[in-house]
Structure formats: structure tokens, C-alpha cells
């Protein structure tokens, strides 16, 4: 446990704590595993839903990505992070949500959670967000410590935002890249110095919402989309990696209606989107002909723009 530097462990009481409208409980796992299409198992870390108990010391692995947090606009939310023991430090940053400093989950402006902390915030704007750990972030987010965060309008799922378009089918595509060499590092890697190579990401796996985009994501339930003509699809696209991405919608044309949790002044028609790390785009599709559309996400080198890899999934319109 020794050797971590520039961490700020604490578990204070939540300032001005009130009774929330909704509570999410999260604890940590550090020994998850994702099986890739080539048969390799890659270690991942993340959050599990520990509702109903304090959770353990992370002995049982957990889902990747971490379970979604889904709330309605106007709700006061408690996100309880249980990080018992003194094994490691983590936080939850609700990315795109803008709470007080104490509830922002950034170690060096507040604290890294050791024990339990209840993040208190109120969802002001419907849209697509994600949450992730903000301790030694360069490593912890790469290790998979993130999950979707969806704020529905007050009327609930089925509409992107109040006054915005409705949808029948929803897909959440969190597109990420792994450099498997990073996935054997300790939680506090190089926080005191030394060269752990954390400036140099050389991805060898390309992932859509926790599934290998080489082959599995083409058909994986919860990733690949099946819908009928006449239905409206909402794709919530999250660049959950570090490198720029280009997502092509397989010949379908969609309308970007919101980004980063804010409606656009007017929808923008797209057949592909370029994004950078942590951007979110909400895209509405109304396909008028049946077919199988292969969606491709290209992961681009941040220096020369070359394609480092690709992940694919499908939209099947019956």
C-alpha cells in the first residue's frame, strides 16, 4: 500500500446532506476480467452495484463497463462509493455533471475516497453522461472504471430531453481502446514518479460497451441493435477512450440532437461523427428501409490520424 503519492484519502460527511430522490451504491472491484475474441483475458477494474450491502474488498470481479446510473432530471441523487479497507483509493467523477467541488470526485481538489463517501448532486439537464474514477485517472479509466450515466427528462426514458425527440429503441455505445500492457499495473502506478509508460498508449483491443469490437460486438446483446422500420433509434455514443474516434453509421443517416448533455440549437444531419475523448453525441435514426447496417468505429492516432484499430457492431432493421 505504501508508495502512492499525491493522493488525498478521506471520507468526510457529505456537506448539507439531504434526503435524496434516488440512491446508487457502488463498490470497487480490481480483479475483473474481459475475454477478448482472440481468447485472451484482460484484467479490468470497475464499480459494482453494492446496493443492499457494503460490498466486499473487490474479491468477486464485476461487470465491465460498470452498471449504469440512470436518473431523471430534477432528482437529487446520492452516489455512495464504498471503498473499504486501505488497499487502494478511488473516486467517482460524474463526467459532465457539475456539482460542488466536494462532490466532483477529483482527488486533488477534494479527496480520494477511503471508506465511504456519498456524492450528492441534482440532475439539472437531461442527456448522456458517464461516470469514472478520477484517482490516477490515466490508469484507472483505462482499466475500465467507468459506466454510463443517463439523465432522462422528468417524463422518463423514451424522450431524449423535454421538448426533444422521442425514441423506441436505445443503444449506449461506450467506445474504448485497451493497451493490454497497461492492464498489469498497480493502482498507484508511477504516482511517485518513474516511467510506467502512461504517456504512451498503444492500444491492441477496441471495445464497444465492454465487448470486443473485433467480432463479438457485431452480435452482442445490448450492443448490436435490432429494430423495425417505423421505429426510432437513439444511439447514445460515448467516446470512452483516450484517442480520437470516427464513428460511421453503416450508410444510415442520423440526426445529432444533443451532445455532452445539452440539446443542440438545431439538429445536425450526419452519416459519421468525429469525436475526442469523453465527448458524447445523441443521434436519432429513423431508417426507412430494412437491412443490416454495419457501424464502424475507427480509433485514430492522436498525432498522425492513422487508424489504430476498429470496432464494429450492427443495426439490423427488420
Amino acid at each position, binding site marked *: 500500500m505504501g508508495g502512492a503519492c499525491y493522493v488525498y484519502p478521506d471520507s468526510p460527511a457529505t456537506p448539507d446532506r439531504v434526503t435524496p430522490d434516488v440512491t446508487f451504491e457502488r463498490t470497487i472491484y480490481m480483479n475483473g476480467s474481459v475475454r477478448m475474441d482472440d481468447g485472451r483475458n484482460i484484467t479490468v477494474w470497475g464499480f459494482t452495484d453494492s446496493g443492499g450491502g457494503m460490498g466486499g474488498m473487490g474479491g468477486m470481479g464485476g461487470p465491465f463497463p460498470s452498471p449504469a446510473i440512470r436518473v431523471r432530471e430534477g432528482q437529487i441523487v446520492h452516489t455512495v462509493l464504498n471503498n473499504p479497507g486501505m488497499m487502494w483509493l478511488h473516486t467517482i467523477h460524474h463526467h459532465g455533471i457539475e456539482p460542488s467541488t466536494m462532490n466532483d470526485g477529483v482527488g486533488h481538489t477534494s479527496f480520494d475516497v477511503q471508506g465511504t463517501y456519498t456524492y450528492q448532486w441534482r440532475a439539472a439537464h437531461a442527456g448522456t453522461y458517464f461516470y469514472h474514477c478520477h484517482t490516477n485517472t490515466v490508469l484507472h479509466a483505462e482499466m475500465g472504471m467507468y459506466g454510463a450515466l443517463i439523465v432522462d427528462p422528468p417524463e422518463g426514458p423514451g424522450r431524449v430531453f423535454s421538448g426533444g425527440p422521442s425514441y423506441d429503441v436505445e443503444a449506449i455505445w461506450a467506445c474504448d481502446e485497451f493497451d493490454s500492457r497497461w492492464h498489469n499495473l498497480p493502482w498507484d502506478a508511477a504516482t511517485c514518479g518513474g*516511467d510506467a509508460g502512461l504517456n504512451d498508449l498503444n492500444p491492441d483491443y477496441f471495445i464497444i460497451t465492454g465487448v470486443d469490437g473485433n467480432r463479438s460486438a457485431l452480435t452482442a446483446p445490448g450492443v448490436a441493435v435490432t429494430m423495425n422500420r417505423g421505429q426510432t433509434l437513439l444511439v447514445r455514443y460515448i467516446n470512452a477512450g483516450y484517442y480520437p474516434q470516427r464513428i460511421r453509421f453503416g450508410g444510415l443517416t442520423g440526426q445529432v440532437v444533443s451532445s455532452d448533455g445539452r440539446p443542440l440549437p438545431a439538429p445536425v444531419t450526419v452519416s459519421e461523427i468525429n469525436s475526442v475523448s469523453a465527448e458524447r453525441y445523441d443521434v436519432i435514426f429513423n431508417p426507412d428501409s430494412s437491412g443490416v447496417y454495419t457501424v464502424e468505429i475507427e480509433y485514430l492516432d492522436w498525432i498522425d490520424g492513422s487508424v489504430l484499430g476498429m470496432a464494429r457492431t450492427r443495426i439490423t432493421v427488420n
Partner: protein
Amino acid sequence: MPYDSFMTNLLNNNYHNDYHNKNNIHFSTTTTCLPILQIMLSLSAAIDGRSKTTKGVYMQRRDFLKFSTLGLAGSVTGLGTFLSWSPRANAATIDQTFYITDGMRTQADGIDVWFQAYSSTSTGLDYPAQSMIVQEGDTVNITIHNTLGTTHSFVIDGLVDSGDIPGGTSTTVSFLAGSAGSYLFYDRVNLPYNRLTGLHGGLAIMPKNSSNEIYAGSPTFKQQLFWLYNDIDPAWHDAIRQGRTPTSKFKPRYFHINGISARPPGSTNYTDPTKNAFYDPRSQISGKIGDRTLLRVLNAGMCVHSMHWHGNHLEWITRNGQPRAQIWKKDVIALENNMGKVDVIYPFEPPPDAWPPVTSGQQYVMHLHDEMTQTAGGGLYQFGAATLIKFK
């Protein structure tokens, strides 16, 4: 501070909550942090020293610093934190002098890296150069003294190109300040190497008669900053210093905003605004509710970046010099590489998701979300391209 020291303190009940004190860490004056922006209105003849001279000659000549400041028609000095600007009804002549210099800068992990820069003095190393603000229609005269032995240039795309300035010589370029906006000035010789190793800076051209617009009719701001990003591969800097063309693949190990990286609480130089981008008055965003802050973001480096602000969504006004057809509100904005640029406004609205609501006493981070940039030398998370946002 090592984690186990924290633990020891915690167990001894001596642990002191650093974050409770952080609101008190700031710089009470803005004038001591940085020299004033050295742009002066000259109503007298242009400065001496336009003729090409040798390094030895002009280094002894200080008379070019003797500008007339009588009859100033407007204020164009920037003090400390935010660059102040007062509009003028009439165009002026702006004279600025830069010295091309070089030297070493110690990075967060203790490694010294060579840089060259457009400096305000012959002995300085202003990497990046001090930013300049002028007004549409102004005549701008820039005198560049190349104190080095190598050839350099001074270029603003679309505005001016000095051509080669051989080592040990000086030149003056003049141009009419054209369209309002944010510009990078840089050295085009050996592109991109001289630009990458530090020869760059920011120029703003303000619209006529306006103190609060990016271009005529743009959304307005109350204060403005330049953010110049750069990515540092010390192997490249070393090669360029030795006059060689880098042959290795570009692998940046340090990531700068306005020439320095951030430092976290407990680190050496944490409170030093010349060492910690969190407290660098050129970079830190500080204001009260309503203090809409324009960020003129210029990427001198080779990497595409994802800029992420906590606390507020930004208004994304321009991309690569062009007003955007729609102004989007974003918490992440792309910054293209190799001189990509954006103008964005941090609105200083109450953080929308705080409960109970807050309007002051908050601090947030701005950091790049391509998190490799949050490191130095392959580790040291929190020693990368980041700064602080302070709700006073």
C-alpha cells in the same frame, strides 16, 4: 506526499484535510506574477535597431526599450491574471520587440529540456512568448533580434511572414491587423521543429471599438486568457538543439499549457505560479458568477487534444478561426493538432448540478481528457496539462 505518510498521519489523528485549506492558496496580487505585456503604443519614430546587427551589438544596446508612451490613445498592457483591453476609436501603431533565445527548462520529473523562444528580453526564455492584443486596423511592427546562431522566422498565417532571419541578425516586420480573432505566431523554419521547441505565441486582434467580443457580433466576454498547448518529446528537443532532424517517432513525455504543467497539492513548487499551471495567472480561470471568460486556445503541439472543463459547460464559439454555425454548450471540446485553435467561453454560471446550489468558494479542474497528457515522464499523474477554475 507519500500515501503511507498520509496514512500515518491519519492514524495519529494528525491528518490535515488539505482541501480545506486550498481555498486559501492563491495569489493576492496579479502584478507580481508576470512582467507586463510589453506592447506599447509608439507615437514617436519606430524603434532603433531595425537594421540587421550582430548579437553582440544589440545586446549592448538598450535604447530600443525607450519607447515614447506619451499620448496613449488606449491601454494595451495586460497585468497578471487577465489581459486587460480598452478599445480605441482610432487605429494605432503597435511596436513589439522579441529576442529569439534558448535555454533549458526543468520538467516535473527533474529532467532538463531545451527550448527556444520569442523572449521579451535578450536574456530571458519566454516559452511561449508573451501574448499580444491589438485592434483591427492597427499597424503592428515587430522587431525580432535573433540572438541564436541558427536561422529563424516570425510568421502569422495570413498576416505576416518575416522570411529567414539568419542567426545573429535582426529584422522588423510590419503588418496591418486584419480580421478580429485569435492567431498563433510561430517560426516556420524547419517546420514543425522550431515551433514545437518553443518558438510560438498568441496574438489577439480585437474588433474595432469593442472590449468584449471575439468578432463583431460574437457572444461577449468579460475577461480573456490565451491557452497555448504543447507536447514535449525531449528526444526531439535534444536532436533539434544539436541541429539534427529528429528521426525517432514522436512520443511526447511532457504536456504543457502556457509552457508549464500542473502540480498537485503536496508537491514541490505547488504554490509557485511560475512552476504550477494551476496557479499560473496566464492559465487559471478565476471569477465570480457572470465573469464570462474567453479562452483563446492555440495548439502549438503535434497531438489532437480533448479539453474537459469541470464546473460549467463551455460555449464553443470558433473552430480554426471560423465562427461556428451553431454555438454548442460542451464539457469537452476538441483541439486539433499542428496549430488547431478554438475560442471558447467559460460562462461562470452557478454549477448547475450542485445541491444545495453554490455560487462561490468552489474550485474545479480543467484538464485534457486524453489522459496520457496528465502525466510527466511516463508517470506522475496530475503533473500534466491541467489548470484550476476558481469560483471566487
